[in-house]
Structure formats: C-alpha cells, structure tokens
C-alpha cells in the first residue's frame, strides 16, 4: 500500500489562551516550522509562533507614493507639455487645481496596494490547502483553535511530535495528509 505524504501534525484547542500557550511552548521546544489557526485575530499568536515583521506597510507606502507622483506628473505633463492651452486666463501650470486629483490618486494606489499586497503576501487566493483535509478544521472558522507542526520541520517525526503535542493537552490531534 502507498502512504500519502504527510503535510504536518495538527492539534486542536478550545480557547485562544490554550492555543497561544501551546504555540509558545511548541516554539520554545524548538519547532520552527509551525503555524496556528484561529477564528478571529489573536494578537499574541503571531509572535508566539515567532512571526514578527510583515511588509504590508512598506508595499502600501510605495503604492501611495507612485500614485501621488504619477497623479501630479500626469496633470503637469498634460497641462503644460502635451496640450498647453489658455483656459480662462489661468497659467498652464495651475498647481492648486492639481492637488485634488494628486491626493485621490495617492489614496487609490495606496489602498489597492495595501489590499492586494496583503493577499499576495498571504499567498491568497489559494483554492486548495492540505489543512482542509482535516474534517474538524472546518471548526477553525467558528470556535476552534488549531496548531500545526509542518512535516518539513527538521525536528519533525511522527511519533515524537505527536507525543509532544499530546503533552500540550489538546482536544484532539490529527495527521494532515498533503
């Protein structure tokens, strides 16, 4: 019989507190390739699993800057270089009139890069993911909390990891086929 490759070992908890505690201990125990799942944002989790910085802010800043600059330069180019013409006796470069559009472009590009930057960094959309193979994981979007140790972790071994996770007092443990 062929064995399906294993994606990782998953433990289920009842509350955010348990999960955070478990995640912290797992991380301290030297497991680096781990992740945690919760039905709502739990601030402590990220650093509990050793995830600190994210680059969403940077992406947004770049996007906003591009938007603003292109916005103003577009108007400048149109009004003074591409199609300079006398409008109501105003100068070609009527910068006060150009501020509004510049502002709007900044916001637009900033917002778009924030959202799509976040999705991209999260690797979304992702229609298939091994964790969904675990039936109980459906509860992860309701009231259950999960911790997973990926099989790619150097310390990972089926029996050892299961024992370690059991020591955390989870509600259940399941092996995640990939």
């Amino acid at each position, binding site marked *: 019989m062929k064995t399906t490759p294993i994606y990782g070992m998953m433990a289920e908890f009842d509350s955010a507190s348990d999960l955070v505690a478990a995640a912290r201990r797992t991380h301290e125990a030297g497991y680096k390739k781990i992740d945690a799942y919760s039905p709502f944002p739990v601030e402590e989790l990220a650093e509990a699993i050793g995830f600190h910085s994210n680059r969403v802010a940077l992406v947004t800043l770049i996007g906003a800057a591009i938007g603003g600059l292109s916005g103003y330069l577009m108007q400048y180019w149109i009004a003074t270089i591409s*199609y300079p*013409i*006398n*409008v*109501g*006796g*105003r*100068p070609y470069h*009527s910068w006060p009139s150009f501020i509004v559009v510049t502002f709007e472009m900044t916001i637009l590009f900033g917002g778009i890069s924030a959202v799509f930057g976040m999705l991209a960094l999260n690797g979304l959309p992702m229609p298939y993911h091994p964790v969904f193979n675990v039936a109980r994981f459906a509860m992860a979007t309701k009231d259950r909390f999960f911790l997973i140790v990926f099989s790619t972790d150097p310390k990972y071994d089926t029996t050892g990891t299961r024992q370690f996770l059991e020591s955390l007092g989870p509600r259940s443990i399941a092996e995640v086929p990939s």
Partner: protein
Amino acid sequence: MDQASHKTKRADVCPSKKLDLATVKAQIEQTSGPEYWRSLEELAGTPEFQEMLHREFPKGASEWVDSVSRRGFLQLMSASLALAGMTGCTKLPLEPIVPYVKQPEEIIPGRPLWFATATTLSGYASPVLVESHLGRPTKMEGNDRHPASLGGTDIFVQAAILGMYDPDRSQTITRRGDVDSWAEFVKEIRGPLAVQQGLGGAGIRILTQTISSPTLADQLRAFLKSYPQAKWHVYEPVNRDNVLEGAKLAFGQPVETQYRLEHADVIVALDADFLYAGFPGNARYIRDFAKQRNPDAPMSRFYSIESTPTSTGAKADHRLPMRAVEIEPFARALASALGVAAGGAATGESEKYLKAISAELQKSKGASVILAGDHQSPAVHALAHAMNRALGNVGKTVVYTDPVDARPVNQTESLRELVADMRAGRVDLLVIMGGNPVYDAPADLGFGEVLKNSGISLRIHHGLYQNETAEYCHWHVNDTHSLEAWSDARAYDGTVSIVQPLIDPLYAGRSAHVLVSALSGVSDATGYDLVRTYWQKQHAGADFEAFWRKSLHDGWVEGTTFRAKAVSANPSLPPATVAADDKTVEVNFRRDPSVYDGQFANNGWLQELPKPMTKLTWDNAVLVGPKLAARAGLKSEDMVTLELGGRKIAAPVWIQAGHPDNSVTVCVGYGRTRAGRAGTGAGFDVYPLRTTSALWFSTGGKLSKTGDIYKLASTQGYQTMDTPDGATRPLVREATLEKYRKEPKFAQEEQPPKELTLYPGYDYARQDYAWGMTIDMNSCVGCNNCIVACQSENNIAVVGKEQVGRGRHMHWLRVDAYYQGDRDNPKAYFQPVPCMQCENAPCELVCPVGATLHSSEGLNDMVYNRCVGTRYCSNNCPYKVRRFNFLLFQDWETPQYKMMRNPDVTVRSRGVMEKCTYCIQRISERRIDAERADEKINDDGSLQTACQQSCPAGAILFGNINDPNSRVSKLKAQDRNYGLLADLNTRPRTTYLAQIRNPNPELEG
C-alpha cells in the same frame, strides 16, 4: 390653449377612415418613377390626407421639437420637392445675373458669391446683398452702397431667407384643391377672358397688394387698356391710407414724405414708430437718428408722444404716453402754438410738454422735424405737414416726392368698392394677387363670406401660401419668392432696384409678372424678358447692355431716385372733431413687431423673435397699462374678452409698463388657420374686431375677464434692474447729458484694474489680433435686427413656444429690455448681450473636457464636437449667454433647411452647448484672405460680425483691440466705455458705451 382641447378638436375632425404615414408610405412605395408623383397628387386631394396632415401637425410649435411629426411631414415634403425636381433647387437661373463686384465672378466651392437685389414689404424695397453658396442663398445683408440701406436691414429682410426655404410654401398650382398644371390654368382662363373681351372686361377685378414695381404696374395698366371696364383694386391690412389722405388734405395731391434726420436737432414723433421695421426707410432713419445721438457732438433731442410703448418711444428723451384719440387734439394745440391756425389747446399733464416742445421747436427752426404715425388720422398728418412748413423744415429735414406706391389710392375704400361689386354680382373673374383678404380684410366688409357665396364664376388666387384666401378660390397659382424671380421695386426714396433671382424657383412658382402677362394672353413670357424689355423701353441710351449690367451689379437703377417736389400747401385744415370720450377703453390695432400683418406668421425666426418691449414670442396679447390692469383686476396671462362695436375676441392680457391708461393695444397677424407648421394656431386673431371705421384705433372697447389663464412665452421674465430686495444693479449705465459733461467717467465704477490677480495673465499683446467689441447703447434702438442676423448666420435652431416657455430659447445674441422708474411712464433700455468673450472666462475653468477654451486672439471658443453637455459652463456664466440643446432642436431632415444653412458653421445637435464666438467663421475667412495677400486684417470694415453688419444704427463695433488706431480701440478708450459685471474680474472683451439722455431741463423733475 391647453393640449387637451387640441386633442378633442383634432378628434372630431378625424373621419372614420384614418390615414397614417405608414399607409401613405405604403401607397407611395407601391408605385415608382413618374407615377410615384401622380399617386401623391391623387393622395394630396383626399380628405383623409388633409385630415392626416392636420393630425400630424397639431397647432402649437411643439412641432419643432417633435421629431415624429416633422419626419412625417418630411416624407411628403421631400416627395413633393422631388416633384419640383430636387436637382432644380440649387440650379442658377438660365439668364445671366451679375455677381457683386467685391467677390470673384465664378463660383469657387467654399467661396460665397454676393448678389445685389431687393426684397419688398408693402411695396417698399429694401436693397440687399445676398450671400450665395454654390447657388444657394444663405444670408441677407443690407446693400451698403445703397442710400436707403447703407448696409442696414430690418428683421423682415433678415428672415426672408427662411421664408424662401419655408417647406410649407405652396408648391403646386391647384384647381379646387387638386394639383394641376400651368398649361391647364392658361387653357382654363382663355374662355372667360374671351367672354370679357366682349364686355370690355366689365366683370374683371384684380386685387393686388401695394405695388411699387414699375414693370408690374406697367403690365397691369396695359392689361386695363385692353379691358377698359376692368378694375384694379389694392388692399393691404397695414396700409398708409392716412398718410395719403393727410397728404391730400395738406397738398391736394398724394406725396411721399421723406425725412432727413441727420439734420434734425429736435425730433417730435406724433405716434410715429419710425425706428422699427415696417416704417418705410427705417433702416436709413435709424442710421441718421443714431448719428445725431452722439453725446460728444451736438446731440439731438427727441420727444415721443405715443399711444402704445414702442422701441422708438423707448429712445425718446421725453416720452409722453397718450391715448391715440387724444393725439389729434394735442397736434392741433401744438400747431396753434407754432402759429398754425388749427384750434384746440392742450390741457393738464400734456400742457407742460406742449409748452416745452413748442418752445424748443421755435428755437430750432429748420433743424427740427415732426413725424406723424401711419395709423394717426389724416388730420394729424396734415397738421404735421403744416407744422413742418411753419418751422421751415421743408426742404431741410422734410422732403416731398412722388409716391412710391404705383397706385396711390385709399385702399380701404378700394376694397369696399370691390366687395360692393362682388355683392352686386358685377364680378365674374376675380384675380387676387398676393395678400390674404379673407383673413385680414376689415371685418365689417365680410370679404370672406362674400367671396365664398357670391357667384363669381372664376376666382384665382396667386400667392406664396395656400392660405385662408386660397381656400375660397377655384385656382391657386403658387407665387415665387422675391429671391426666386425677376422683378423690380422702389425703395422709400424712389430708387428702383432690379430684383434678381438667386435661385431657380424651388417649387416652379410663377411670378406676378408671368401671371399678368398670361392674363394678357402671353403665357410663355419669362420674368426676365418682361422686366428687361420694360427697362429697355425706359432707357433712352444705346448702351443698354452696360446700363443693365451696372444696374444689376450696383443693386439700383441710376437716376430713378425721386427728386424733391415743390408742393403748394392748401391752408384749410379740417375742423376739430368732437372731443373723444375718455370713459370707455380705447382699442389700438398695430402691425405686429414680428409677424407684421400675418404674412410672416409661418416664419419660425420671426415667431420666436422676442418682441422689443414685451419679449413675448409665438403669441400676441392685449397690452394693458398698469393702471387699467389694476382697475380691472387683471394679471398678465389672464384671458379676457375684448369687445368693440358689438364684435368680440378672446385673448390673453399682458401688462405693459408705460401703456397709456384706459387704452389697450392688440397686434394683428396672429390666429392664422392656414399658415403652416409654425403659424397655424399661434396667437389670437384680432382682425374680427377691426372694421373700416376703426382701422387703427377706436374708443368704446370693453374688457372683461373670463377667468381662464393662458400661458405666454416670454424670453425675459424679469424686466427691471431693481431687485426685489430693494437694490438696483448697474447693468445699463445712464446719465443725462449735463451729468455726463460734468463727470464723464460716471460709467466706470466697479471696473477692477487688470493687476488685481495672483496669476500672471496671458500675453495677448504679442498676437497679431485681439478681438473685441463695443456696443453703443446710445445708438441701439432695440430693432432686434442683430438677433435675426445672428440666427441666420449661425444656423441657430428654432425651439418653439413650449420650449421658450421653459426657458430654452437658443438666441446667441439677445436684447435685454429693462424698465426703470414710474411704471406708467418708465424709462426703457435696450442692452444687446452677445458673449462677452471674457479673458478670465468662468465657463472655461469649469469644463471638465476642455470643450470651451480660449483662443490666442482672445476668443472664448466652443468646441461643439468635444462637448459632453454638463451645462456647468452655463451655470458659471454670469451673463447667461450660453445656449444648450436640451433636445434635438435642429431640424436634421427637412431638405430645404439643409440648403438654407450656412456651410461655414457647424449645425449643432442634441446635448451640446453653443454660444456666440464673434462669428469666428468670418474671422477665419478674412484671416485666410489676408494671409494669402500677405497683409494684416485692417480696420476697413471688410471684417464684420453678422450682428454688426446688420445693425442699421451702427451700434455694434467689432475689431482688433491690439491695434490702438482701430475704431474699436478708440471707442474702448472713451469715458463712456464700461464692462458689464466687470466687478467679477471676468475682463469682458465686449464692452458697452453708457447711454446718455438729453432731457429738456424744463421738463426734468
């Protein structure tokens, strides 16, 4: 009238068997080729067809925007057009006609040719130059070399173009309503004429309008020679019987009176509306009058005593409203004061004026003039003649000549005689040439019902329209428009102009000349031959060719101008009539400022032209003064029944500030029943009230409110510069002559200096040209000419009464009328408002697509193709001179209009903003010419905007303000120069010269 009532009305007339366009199309499609036409002709007669037309073109001008009915009309119109042969439409006549000298002689596509010709109104010719694009006349302009025009025209001349292309004109000869042919007609009349030969023509009657054409008069006289017993009658509803009778009273013979206003320091108008279209020679008189109103030169003083407010009275330094019946006593009193034994003395209010006026006149003997209105009694005219003589004006400011009218008879009597003969059955063959007596004859003569019932065996109507009169005639021969046929006519000074056709008759019409020659037995004569042979007879010299050519080319025939005539006055004046009763309401009948006597009722331009004082369009109304209105509890738009001599009409009321108390004015020419798409059903017919005894005015009228309301469409809802919060806005700036002399710069308040801006301005100085305009409100007489000229030049659409009522009229140039002060005798002002071409144009700033931008020469250009129609520019235009195509206002389908339009100007479609651009097409044309000749456009008047060109007063001046020596620059440098709403720092390129009045100190305050 409300739409519902139309519907029901239309419902009753619908017979059971309905015919709609679908079936008409079907019927037409079944056939093809020539018989296509026959089927249409057959169709044309049937009652179903008539009924369908009626259904397809309900009265009311919603017509113009209702594309369905227009398209419906087109399907038949284009058909009957092809009947006339569309190819023939733009064909030049076969005979050689001579292009105007300033233009190349051979047609170059895109280059218009100019021809000198003339149009006539009640016999009087207006000399014109007509612009012709590839054989299509498109624009009328005054003949600037002709003394009777000097380039000016009147609204009827300007609108003649639309009249010629009118698709509702009669297009075929008809016999008892069925389409027939000229050959048939000629055959048909041969018999009756033969019979009349035997009787010496005892049964023949010819009824014409006023005729000044020497050729036609000659033909008619020749005809009368061969039929000695036949009679030639003349009638027009707006006739000059009083002038004629007055002349007879004064001199025992009919004479024409000409005025030399350029020499008049004091002008007294006794109910004379001499500064508006319809008064013979008005174009020239306006020019001369304006010349005398320059405040920097000795300025004339103008007193107007008038029975209804007119644009002429609005220009008076002193205007005295007076019931028409009281003017004769006043005239007598004035005459006595001037030493003419006339009896009668003025009383009360008018006495003050009388003293002042007579004193003034005494002071300026030989340099004054007294004019009497056409509708005033013969006695008043006789008195005016006597006074002018007493003041030594004759030969200086007043000149007498032979009458222009070829048959100066009392037209009312002439018609009375004809009707009597008809009743008595003495008439067997009646030819009605032009005119519309069934509609406009005095009611007491009952012309219509006599014509219908009398057993006249052959009744022939000759005219441009299948009008009310044609309905009662056996034969209708469709006439030619004066731009379509050869003829000749006299201007007010007697000068003859040869009328050249600009285009072959659109509908194969027959001119009066051809008709008369057919009656005389020559059925194949052409107008050209008739006119030419007549002049050959007149011209003694051998060099006829040169003479003929020169006459055509100049636009007038050398040496035909009347010479001043020495007349001997007969001293006896008619005794003073009994004092008119001042209890009952006086009713005044006047020609309409827009549709005249009704002949222009189907002319959309004129129908939509705001009347100078009321700004009403598409309707006439009973004009009532504020006092009388208050007494009778009347508001504008109340329906009233107006009763006079047991006759009644119903019409809406319009409250007219400055109208004499206890008197009302109604204008004739409305309420037509067979005018066409525009005229039929517009307004109210007042002819039923007009009798031979009271042709112009009469007391004994009764006003009674019916309780109904009738919506009138005025283009200016609010006619004063005083705002309801008690403030007054300095829109028209005016001062008396003294004040102006004391503080010349009185008009220049609130004119911000150019430096008041954070922005660096656009440098117009480095351009060759910077276009600008000045409008001298001192010269402007509110004649409306510029509006029609602009409409014609710029292909401006007509929108119809309903749309005007909604505030959507399209005139690029409007003339605002303001009333200030005492509502019973207010000061009135005219302010022509074209686009101001602001240098800091608020409209341009807010256009999101850049559809309106500034040209390097300072024009506020409108890019129609770019416009998406946000209307933001109009909202932000403080002058509200932008016009928007809210619906599809332009007629894109009627082929005649396609030919009529100026090919140099875009025809705007739905959803686009449009506006005045100083006739940019004319600027470009001149610029191209100038560049070709490697020169700059100079200030010689070769570049004129349409409004400027047409202005008889020369009030509008356009030119290059970069050239300090141009006339416009000089005017802008004047003290009177100011910008409208300049305090908004819009920096308008169009500026105004403030108005100056020259009141008599004794009468001030």
